[in-house]
């Protein structure tokens, strides 16, 4: 009886996979978005960050710099992917107004800082292996954002210094064509992703916004593509534009990747044509 019980336990244990890291193929965990979630750079993907498959965990840290004519945007964050099912992320963003701060009356080098805590859950599908169906990998998630400049946000018409975005994302690798396609719908009232607060004198409601990206796999460790992200326009003092970028993501190995992009962030706080270099480093497993 004891022997059969032991055998039963042993059999059950043999059904549980060993915990292993690095089960995903190179670059298929995506890189880190500016909000800390796994994905592209500006757009969120349905992928769970890191290289852990369903039998392992993955994690990474990233730093990103977007150098614009009148501002500098920096973000740093960490994220973990648990069994290719759940992703937890935290990022701190700094929107440095530099010399423009004085022109805006905020003071030289005035910086908005925003913390973003994110959760993402993969609902269904496997973007990489499900190559016999059009069904994409689908995930839902939320990002809670807290901005440290509530007084300034209120002064420009923003309604809140914190907010929560909800999204659903679908990603699919069309492997036979070496093309990755991803889209997401985000319910948000964030102004400039929250860097200028949440809601405004023109609109305070959450609205559906779209994020899309395409990528062409040039080799196992290099993908190039483009992203587009629509945004609300809640503040009457300054029009807000959609964002666009063209990017190249290069993975040295499963532990280090570099993403470089040319990003067009449009008009930000009345300063138009904010276009510049996007550079991101990601280290992890």
């Amino acid at each position, binding site marked *: 009886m004891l022997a059969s019980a032991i055998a039963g336990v042993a059999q059950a244990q043999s059904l549980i*996979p060993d915990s*292993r890291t690095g*089960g995903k193929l190179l670059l298929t965990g995506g890189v880190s978005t500016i909000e800390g979630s796994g994905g592209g750079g500006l757009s969120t993907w349905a992928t769970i960050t890191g290289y852990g*498959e369903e039998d392992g965990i993955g994690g990474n840290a990233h730093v990103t710099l977007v150098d614009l004519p009148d501002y500098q945007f920096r973000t740093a964050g960490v994220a973990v992917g648990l069994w290719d099912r759940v992703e937890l992320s935290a990022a701190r963003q700094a929107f440095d107004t530099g010399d423009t701060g004085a022109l805006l009356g905020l003071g030289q080098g005035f910086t908005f800082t925003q913390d973003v805590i994110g959760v993402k859950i993969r609902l269904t599908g496997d973007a990489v*292996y499900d*190559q016999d169906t059009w069904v994409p990998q689908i995930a839902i998630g939320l990002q809670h954002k807290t901005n440290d400049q509530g007084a300034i946000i209120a002064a420009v018409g923003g309604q809140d210094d914190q907010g929560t975005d909800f999204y659903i994302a679908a990603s699919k690798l069309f492997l036979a064509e070496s093309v990755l396609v991803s889209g997401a719908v985000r319910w948000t009232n964030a102004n400039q992703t929250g860097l200028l607060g949440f809601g405004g004198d023109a609109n305070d409601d959450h609205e559906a916004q779209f994020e899309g990206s395409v990528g062409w*796999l040039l080799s196992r460790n290099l993908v190039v593509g483009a992203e587009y992200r629509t945004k609300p326009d809640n503040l009457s003092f300054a029009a807000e534009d959609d964002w666009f970028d063209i990017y190249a993501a290069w993975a040295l190995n499963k532990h280090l990747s570099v993403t470089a992009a040319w990003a067009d962030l449009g008009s930000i706080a009345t300063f138009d044509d904010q276009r510049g270099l996007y550079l991101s480093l990601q280290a992890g497993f």
Partner: protein
Amino acid sequence: MIRKMTLTLAAAAAAFALPAMAQDPAHRPGEEAVDPYIVAEANAGVAPFEGTEMLEAFHGREGSDRIVDGMLDRSVADARIAEIFVATDMVRLRRTLKEQFCYILNGGCAYTGRSMQDAHDDIGLQPADMGALVEHLQDAMDAEGVPFRTQNRFLAKLAPMRRDVVTR
């Protein structure tokens, strides 16, 4: 062609009364015995490519065979997954994989191995094993000089097999 196949099947049926088992895959020289199973091309798990473009890109049957050998040689030398192959009849695995690759590449081979589900249900492969196998296949295709985009077309055929190959 069909007439020839019919004749072959008829001869096999006369000889063994079980046409599908006519060429017993369990008793190839140098291979260990396996439990009986029905031989069918559907066991390959996916329909072959059309035309000759893919086979040519893989340098014909010889190139395809080299890729199988390259993948398996790399796999048994990989500490992450070497254990999988300890109890495996490598002679049979090499033969059936070569048949399967050749079949999928439309190289005119018959696949006589078991279905992917049947062949893997006792092995207990997990997702990370699949990833490692794919990487070794990619390295073997690189070594053979198969262009990256062509590799991906081939991998897209194999990828859905993960559902049958990964069992835990």
